[in-house]
């Protein structure tokens, strides 16, 4: 007799699901259209696996970005069943039962180039706009060693260092859909990471950039961003803290 049961039906019972994918081929189509594929998957497969199954065995023209396949590179943010997530971080069994249909479409608010691939340039332009780098013009420590920082000061901005620039947050934000000029939650998260770093000296400039009309004040605290963030970053809170710094002039 076997000492353990073979793990969960999980590993043995394949299931059939339909994937309804929003397709767009810039070389032939004028408008995007929906296409449905039926694939056999294991319940523990990721949505990414199902997309690969289609791409590799049914229709090679399906275009998507992906790399790491375990939720740390930020390539494959897409809208799955109406909500932004990473295709490689959601298991089929968590969103569908045998025979269900799963909808997959590109993230919203950035121009679609092909199928699930959008133009990320506007997103990265916002990122670059908030000075996403440490500024410290003091001379380096004379002993040639590291700048010091207390564990509490380090902890202060820990949450926002996790960002992988996947754009799931920014493209889940109604303010961003309405107006692409809004810097968006991801850029604010990046600014937060430096504003609250005790080693940094450019908080003033960053806050000034963020106080512009299309800066933090465009955030209507919708909270979609926090819900979408695959890294579990408290995005809305970070935005709130930036607003607080702007309001009070105190960074703590």
């Amino acid at each position: 007799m076997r000492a353990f049961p073979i793990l969960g039906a999980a590993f043995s019972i394949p299931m059939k699901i339909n994937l309804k994918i929003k397709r767009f081929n810039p070389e032939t189509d004028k408008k995007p259209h929906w296409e449905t594929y039926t694939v056999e998957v294991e319940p523990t497969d990721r949505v990414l696996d199902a997309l690969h199954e289609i791409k590799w065995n049914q229709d090679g023209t399906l275009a998507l970005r992906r790399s790491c396949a375990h939720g740390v590179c930020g390539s494959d943010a897409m809208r799955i069943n109406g909500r932004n997530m990473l295709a490689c971080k959601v298991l089929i069994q968590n969103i569908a039962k045998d025979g269900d249909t799963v909808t997959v479409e590109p993230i919203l608010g950035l121009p679609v180039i092909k199928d699930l691939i959008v133009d990320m340039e506007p997103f990265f332009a916002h990122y670059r706009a908030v000075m996403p780098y440490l500024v410290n013009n003091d001379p380096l420590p004379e002993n040639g060693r590291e700048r010091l920082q207390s564990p509490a000061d380090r902890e202060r901005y820990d949450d926002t260092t996790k960002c992988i620039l996947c754009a799931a947050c920014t493209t889940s934000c109604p303010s961003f859909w309405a107006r692409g000029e809004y810097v968006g939650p991801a850029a604010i998260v990046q600014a937060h990471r430096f504003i609250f770093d005790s080693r940094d000296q450019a908080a003033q400039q960053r806050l000034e950039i963020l106080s512009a009309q299309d800066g933090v004040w465009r955030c209507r605290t919708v909270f979609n961003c926090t819900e979408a963030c695959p890294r579990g970053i408290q995005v809305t809170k970070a935005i709130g803290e930036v607003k607080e710094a702007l309001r009070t002039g105190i960074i703590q």
Partner: protein
Amino acid sequence: MASTTVTPGRTVRKVQPIPQTRNRLELALWMFMRYSGLALVFLALSHFWMQHVLIGTHEIEFAGTQLRWGITGQPVTVEQLIWRAYYAVMLILAVAHGINGVRQVAYDYFGHRPATYKGLMYVVVAIAAIISLGGILALFMGAAAGGEAALR
């Protein structure tokens, strides 16, 4: 600073207030939305419950309004003055809050068309100004006018 020790705990830093006027306006309006909203919770809800729920719309009569505002032609009482102030504050806050709310929404959807956005806002502000000016006048200068009206 190239210091060789570190103070435990969290550093607090200060920044200058943001200088550009336009940016300060966004901040000010943002604050206004929050504080006026909180004030309106009491003003608007109490008003609504009083008039629409406790009294009930069906019982509202012109005479009641005349009495509360003091536009019956009789000398104005302190109580009536307090009612007038209550309505005036509520009116100003609600209109300002509403206008800025509309501005936010309009900026979202028409901001990419500056001319449309501006035109729309002129219209909204103009209508709101006329209506609320009318409202204020009705409250405070209504004594005389109201007196006449009451006689009619």
